[in-house]
């Protein structure tokens, strides 16, 4: 992990309210694992004061220029405009100077390739699954991706996921794209068809909770990627903690989302408390 003082390569709206940003980051890719994140400094001046955490969508190299220089390496994020920080981000252009810290945190454990893999992504949660899908396919796993959203606007990068060799299934609450309904009903069907599968999920807390309940009922291993508001991203501020399994008043267990997570094996979390503070408006000072 490193602090990059760097610049934007591109910043484009890909779906209403969703943007893709490519940022120049030499040497980033070799240290980045699926499920890790960056802390992004929106602009040099204050406010907004704090950096914002974003899941890494992918890393890669730009096509080499004809000037003979080595190809430029980038990290790419996808973000949804929700508050002040992301509103400012949406206005940024190629060449604008930004700072990012990363790659941070513990990503997905994707070494085992027993059985099939089912990835469940809700809205912006799809971001953290792209590199994971790529790695799982490269390891020879058969990967099915269930993409869920409120409407078609929340579904992005379908073709890119498919190009990795992933089977995709889309569902939306309003039926504007794919099947009408919740992504979890698709998950229930897939688990019946592939009972030995391992599940990976990233998305809003109600979705994660439902996926957790389904996986517990089906005795299916589950890894979840959490999103919490955080100040530092490196384990110093202790602002992003979640309760671990077995947490009690007398014997408390708080885990840093930034350092122990953001990806957790779901059995290590205290699901009775998770998401209780979901109404907390994230970073919208």
């Amino acid at each position, binding site marked *: 992990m490193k602090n990059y003082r760097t610049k934007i390569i591109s910043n484009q709206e890909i779906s209403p309210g969703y943007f893709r940003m490519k940022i120049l980051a030499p040497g980033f890719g070799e240290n980045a694992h699926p499920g890790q994140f960056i802390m992004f400094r929106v602009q040099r001046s204050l406010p907004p004061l704090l950096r914002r955490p974003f899941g890494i969508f992918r890393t890669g190299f730009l096509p080499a220029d004809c000037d003979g220089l080595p190809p430029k390496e980038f990290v790419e994020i996808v973000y949804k405009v929700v508050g002040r920080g992301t509103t400012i981000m949406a206005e940024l252009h190629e060449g604008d100077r930004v700072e990012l810290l990363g790659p941070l945190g513990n990503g997905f454990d994707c070494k085992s390739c027993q059985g099939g893999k089912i990835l469940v992504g809700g809205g912006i949660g799809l971001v953290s699954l792209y590199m994971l899908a790529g790695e799982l396919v490269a390891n020879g796993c058969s990967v099915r991706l269930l993409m869920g959203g409120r409407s078609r606007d929340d579904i992005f990068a379908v073709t890119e996921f498919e190009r990795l060799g992933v089977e995709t299934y889309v569902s939306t609450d309003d039926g504007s794209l794919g099947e009408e309904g919740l992504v979890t009903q698709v998950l229930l069907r897939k688990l019946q068809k592939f009972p030995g599968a391992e599940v990976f999920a990233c998305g809003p807390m109600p979705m994660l909770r439902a996926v957790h309940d389904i996986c517990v009922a089906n005795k299916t291993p589950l890894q979840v990627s959490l999103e919490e508001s955080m100040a530092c991203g490196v384990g*110093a501020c202790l602002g992003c903690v979640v309760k671990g399994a077995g947490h009690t008043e007398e014997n408390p267990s708080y885990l840093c989302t930034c350092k122990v997570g953001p990806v957790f094996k779901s059995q290590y979390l205290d699901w009775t408390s998770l998401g209780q503070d979901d109404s907390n408006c994230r970073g919208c000072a």
Partner: protein
Amino acid sequence: MKEPTKTTVKRPNLVVEIAGIQLRNPVMPASGTFGYGEEYAPFLDLEKIGAIVTKGLSLKPKAGNPTPRIAETISGMLNAIGLQNVGIDAFIKHKMPFLRTVNTPVIANFFGNTLEEYGEVARRLNDIPEIAGAELNISCPNVKQGGIVFGTDPRAASEVVTLVRKHLQKPLIVKLTPNVTDITVVARAVEEAGADAISCINTITGMSVDVHTRKPRIANRTGGLSGPAIRPIAVRMVHQVVQTVAVPVIGIGGIVRPMDALEFLIVGAKAVQVGTANFVDPTAMMTIIEGIEEFCIEEGIDDIHQLIGSLKL
């Protein structure tokens, strides 16, 4: 900086001494914003900063407050972490081995739930030779016991400092809260009780509400406000304390840029602590140290002491 100037001009002396602890420069992290040092080792050279100040330590490990614990506000942040820490024993066992390898003075911040616990932690800190000094926290606004109960009442403050002083043979810095009507009263009390230095200010109690849910934005309801938003208040209070006590004062509160640190030094702080800025930019302290050095060169100052307390009134 222009190259020719840099090679011909002598680098200013930034060394300061706080309560017998020699610092290579007056910049150190504020407790609770720098973990136990190791968290920031990937981003900056720990041997370039003046000192390392640890997260507040207690006798037993402390779990901290429920979540959400932080909320961003205009040019600041509210936090109510609740002094989560590994406890003094785990600190000695797991955190000290790394800190021993770093050639920078380590200042252990500590607190107790009771008067007795303050004394006991002080005793334990004595047994760690590599700890250069201790910073006594009597100012955390976010826990019921430990901290602010002692820091807002001059008599209670005096009592805890007297007790800790009895048990601690190392330099003792006492960290004060701004959540009082007159900070100079508490400052005088802790000086008389034996503090070797005073650091101020801790965070200012604040509150923020989510208008959609109508709930407080942090679970503890109130939290401590930090960041650039509080800097003018901090500068004012440091100025008042410097005018009141003879012991050295460490200035804290919203320092983000070099010129922010300079403000505190000019009003008379002998050193400064950088807090929230570490979250914003993990290399912030390096930028601040370099900026102080450049300022001295530009102003023809060859020793930082020429700047400290040079406020013109």
